[in-house]
């Protein structure tokens, strides 16, 4: 029956050979990955961690911030999607704190950590500890000079005039669900066309 469907014995042999080769490749790949995992678990020197540059490529701290519960937020960049899960330990003159970290579900190279607030100008010794086996992954000394404010936010403090307006009418929007808001009409101004070309 197989021969009737696939045409000839040669074709069946080709398919079987393909399946065997595929299976061998899978076994080979599995062996390699097991070997790699074993070698990774061997002692590795701890990495250094510092502030990120404009286009981060190595493990680094993207930014510090805070939340409404007065937690300090640490935004960490990890270079590899398969970077092990970790938590932060921050040593400073007033004591040592642990910061829980969560990988972003959508972009696994971004890790969000939070914990006790640190005072400005305080020197910190940050350690990244593996959640799996408490191994030190990376460490570095960082000083929190300020909760930085970006260029965009700063430029507005230079006195850019924002046209006055009350809540606008969210007319049908193609991209998000919106509620009906009543409002006064929008003042006329020269429109910025959507979908711009390069700046």
């Amino acid at each position, binding site marked *: 029956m197989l021969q009737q469907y*696939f*045409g000839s014995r040669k*074709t069946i042999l*080709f*398919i079987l050979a393909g399946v065997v080769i595929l299976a061998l490749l899978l076994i080979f790949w599995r062996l390699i990955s097991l070997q790699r995992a074993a070698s990774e678990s061997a002692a590795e020197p701890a990495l250094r961690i510092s502030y990120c540059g404009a*286009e981060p490529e190595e493990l680094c701290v*993207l*930014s*510090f*911030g*805070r*939340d*409404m519960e007065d937690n300090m*937020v640490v*935004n960490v*960049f990890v270079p590899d*999607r398969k970077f092990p899960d970790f938590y932060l330990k921050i040593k400073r003159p007033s004591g040592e704190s642990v910061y829980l970290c*969560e990988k*972003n579900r*959508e*972009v696994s190279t*971004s890790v*969000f950590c939070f914990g006790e607030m640190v005072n400005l100008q305080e020197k910190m010794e940050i350690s990244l500890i593996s959640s799996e086996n408490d191994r030190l992954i990376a460490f570095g000394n960082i000083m929190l000079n300020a*909760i*930085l404010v*970006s260029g*965009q*936010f700063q430029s*507005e403090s230079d006195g850019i005039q*924002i*046209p*006055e*307006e*009350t*809540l*606008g*009418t*969210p*007319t*049908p*929007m*193609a*991209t*998000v*669900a*919106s*509620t009906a*808001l009543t*409002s006064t009409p*929008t003042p006329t101004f*020269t*429109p*910025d*066309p*959507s*979908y*711009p*070309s*390069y*700046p």
Partner: protein
Amino acid sequence: MTFYINVLMDGFSVLVDQAWTIFSILIIVVWGQTIFTAIFKKAFEDQFTFLELFSLSLAGWILPSSLLSVLLFIGVFLFGEIAAIVIFAIATGVFISTLFVWKLNRVSLLTGLILILSFAFFLTLKLAFLRNIILPSYFDSAEHYRIIKYFVGYYELPSNDLPLSNYYHVGFHLLSASISYFFDLEIVDTILVFGQAMLAILPFSLFFIVKRETGSNAAAAFTGLLAGLGWHMPSHLMNWGKYPALFSLVGIHFVLNVGYLAYRSNRFKFKRSIYWLLGLGVLVSALIHTRSLIVFVCMIIAILFTAWRGRLPLFFQWLVFVLVLCALAVQIFVVQKSSILTLLFGYYTGQDIFATSLVIFFLIFSSWAFPDLTFFMLAISALMMTGLFIPVTGFAGYGPQTLLDRPYVQMILYLPLSILGGLGLSGLFQFLQGLSFYPKRLMPFVTLFFVVFLFWNAKNNHKFYPSDCCQFFNRDDLAALQWMDRTLPLDSNIMIAASNLYVTSLEEGALAGADSGIWIAPMISRKTIPVRGNLSFDRSDVHVDICRQKIDFIYVGNMPQSFNVLQLDAQKDWYQIAFLLPQARVYQVIACP
């Protein structure tokens, strides 16, 4: 040279990082290509060269692959998740049996190697775009993400809800969701890589029409190169997050190629089954992007117009030709006068001026050597531009629109320009061959000259990396959304910045997201209320209005049209900072009566 090596290195690093995603997407493309080629060969036998068939199948893959994704959706709807397993098993079986039983064309090692290397080169170049990107660009992407997430969720747990009452661009989302679901890919990765893979594939499918018309492989390959590197489009679509529009181009290329075959039915052994292919192509393209239907109507009118012109005496043929050129000139003038539409040509006549000028120069030769196809391309351009001014009201629940909008026409202009360029190069060959003093051995050098020119132009003017214009999202936004997801109640109302949508000549103040807040609803499922970003938070009536709308939080991203943080910070009695990172903030609305 160093420039291209650097871009290729960046692309290669993405290639390694996203190897599984790229492999999964290419498998679906190759699957569709194989099925299409087998069916086409069965219908038309060996009337086409390997290269022609390969080029056509690089547009034709979209038919079987889209139909597979539609079948998957219907199967899961009727029989649940088990249908997905059965459908994929059948698809694999069909693929294997097609490869072995239907005996696809053998290809010489050199041809195969050149094709693979050219594709790998284009793909790697295009992948460099993803080197430092976090999420797909601009506001459209968030909606595409949401719909694909809905479909992936649907396959895992079928429900009767629809993603939107006025939702109609189903093709791209179903296809992406199927791949994401079957190969277990992150949705963001699927969207990003699929877009770049399409940009790499698209130029190859334009080889067919120019090869059939001119018989010149060099001119046909030059057409593809023009389409890939000549202008900012279609690459810039990725900065706009217009993925369905990009995918509709695959359908448009296919319908154009097959439509051309139908028009030139006297040049091969014609079979009526070509109309089935055309119909299927139109259907799939419409599933991917409804506006492609308008392009097809323009194509039909342009074909009729071309056929009518062909019957006129020679003098009147040229008169009509000149009239269409004049109509185009008038349209360009009117478009340039409109503040909304002026962007249409801004870049084609700005950074892209060298490629555009080259095509204008080539127009002389293409209109001399291939007047019919040249006229068709000019006519279709004029018709599409006319679509910018024809109003349509109330379609699918949207407000006043025009048949085609400015971004769509801007996107598609590369298509007639590329074909005119290819025809022009072939026309130039014919012209030079007619000269008595022209040595024929110079022909490859003429081609090489224009190829080098294109690469030089692309190095200086083509953007291989994301544009700042449209990058809403940064890693602080990512952390802010993560914090909101773990902290804010599910029923929180979050106000986000929006700006007016201006893409047609009939806008009436529809809103579009203006910063990363647009990702809150699709990513963390909190309700968002879009409001124009230029709101005055220092006014008490604004605070009252915000309270009245039961808005709990205000999200501030890092774009020029985001909300004004200085005003928010100044009103500490009304707006309290809830989350702060350098480039992302969340304010809690307090003191509501």
